[in-house]
């Protein structure tokens, strides 16, 4: 088997893996019942789905062209930024009471989204 044949199969396999996980993420978005569980679906798309698609792009560029590292950077930036948006969405869910109330922490401590403040910004 020559290198270009092997490369073709590798690209195909990675594309299929990426497409499968992106598809499962979309199914999860439709199927899961409430806002907090729906948040779990994009994490799959963002990690394995995009990861495998970028791996396919990278192996294609290495086998058939000059090769490129840019996909590694896309993956790195995605992995750094995805948790922040997920964190903000879940904070909004907690704030709007769109999900089950989180368990109490302790008597003198609470979740930072639920902290009540007066006009001067002091904790009540």
């Amino acid at each position: 088997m020559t290198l270009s044949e092997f490369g073709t199969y590798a690209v195909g396999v990675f594309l299929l893996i990426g497409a499968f996980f992106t598809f499962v993420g979309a199914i999860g978005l439709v199927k899961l019942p409430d806002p907090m569980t729906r948040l779990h679906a994009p994490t799959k798309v963002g990690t394995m789905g995009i990861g495998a698609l970028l791996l396919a792009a990278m192996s294609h560029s290495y086998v058939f062209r000059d090769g490129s590292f840019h996909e590694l950077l896309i993956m790195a930036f995605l992995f750094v930024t995805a948790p922040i948006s997920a964190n903000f969405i879940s904070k909004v869910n907690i704030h709007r009471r769109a999900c089950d109330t989180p368990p109490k922490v302790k008597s003198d401590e609470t979740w930072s989204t639920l902290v009540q403040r007066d006009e001067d910004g002091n904790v009540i």
Partner: protein
Amino acid sequence: MTRLFNWLFPHPVMTLLLAVVWVILQNNVSAGMAVFGLILGTVIPRAFAAWWPDRPTGFKLGRMILYVFLVLYDIVIANVQVAWIVLTKPRKKLRPTWIKIPLDLRQPEAISVLAGTITLTPGTVSADMSSRGHYLLVHVLHTDDPDAVRDDIKTRYEARLKEIFV
């Protein structure tokens, strides 16, 4: 000498990281690009040192790289598990829960890395922190044993992070 080094490189790991990112961005591994990347990596952290005053001391780069590979492996495993849950579990049998994780970590950088790891691993999303930073609120998609998930996160990730950020 050490004071000059500390003034010039407020975050040595960030200097290295910026140089590597620059070389990858140019798609051209050569000495010139590496030198230019190191210059950028010196100037940028120096210019922004005022906004990140306390450097994390005793950061272990080698252990951090091992940790990244461990997390990548876990992401692949957890992806398959969560895909199985999404495709086969009926909605009524799904048992999502909140769990709270008592934190031993105190450095903000270490807690950010832990929260990011939890979110990137499918099946768990870190949602919030307690007001004094002693607990982390995590949402789990489906579990029969919340305590086991909590202990797993504590032993697998937090214990390793404690050794990385001493």
